């Protein structure tokens, strides 16, 4: 994207993590907390089932934010998120973002990640160097 203006929507990212995505994310990240990979354990501690890693969902927010700079790994300068609702495997995640400010070639994007009505990441703010 060559030109971004305040209020512009960034392209929406939609991803449906499959049943075993949390296992692959555990392997890739090193976070094997059983609440993410063991439905029985998760239910025993009061969760509906095993839940997505918050940092996986944050990774999708990072991907959607950097997409405005064609996925250049140098472009994303800062990303701050709050984890609230729990993400679940096998449900579509939608990451939507709005340009909040433009300062020269640096843009700030406000982002939300949702599964249906459930916000799993909110108040995400990304600074991207174009």
């Amino acid at each position: 994207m060559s030109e971004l203006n305040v209020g512009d929507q960034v392209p929406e990212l939609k991803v449906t993590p499959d049943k075993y995505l949390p296992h692959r994310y555990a392997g890739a990240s090193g976070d094997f907390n059983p609440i993410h990979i063991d439905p029985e354990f998760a239910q025993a501690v009061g969760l509906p089932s095993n839940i997505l890693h918050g940092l996986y969902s944050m990774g999708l927010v990072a991907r959607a934010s950097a997409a405005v700079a064609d996925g250049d790994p140098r472009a994303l300068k800062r990303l701050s998120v709050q984890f609230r609702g729990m993400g679940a495997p096998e449900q579509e995640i939608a990451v939507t973002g709005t340009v909040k400010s433009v300062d020269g070639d640096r843009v700030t994007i406000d982002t939300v990640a949702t599964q249906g009505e459930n916000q799993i990441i909110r108040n995400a703010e990304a600074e991207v160097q174009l």
Partner: protein
Amino acid sequence: MGIKTDAVGKEWPGTTYQVGREKIKEYATVLGLDNPVHFDVEAAKAAGFRDVVAPPMFAVVYSAPAVAPAMLDPEVGMNFATMVHGGQEFEWSEPACSGDEITTTPKCLEIYEKDGKGFYVFESVSVNQDGAQVVRAVWTNIVRGV
């Protein structure tokens, strides 16, 4: 009951992580990234990197193991049974490439109570083998019922 704040300002020793191509590939794949700079040495070099470059969120891979001893420290005293990861921030500087040796040093920034919850805020700073800062991270954990 007041929350224990003795650990505020405490620093822990750094932990060093050696970045490798296959680990970068694995992490980029799980996030669905397709930029060849994460997979192919020649593509990465053509784009100006020393070697295959990590996606920004790979910061989790090299910094989380360094922050764990701080979070587990009894002096911090977090109750893991009711803890959730409440927030996360990364500020990126120098890219992390395969072959880099990245040392991450954690510190306890803040511990405070709000609305019956305990907030435990840690900072970690990661530098590469040349002493250049790669990332600064802020980790916020929230503990219910303190």
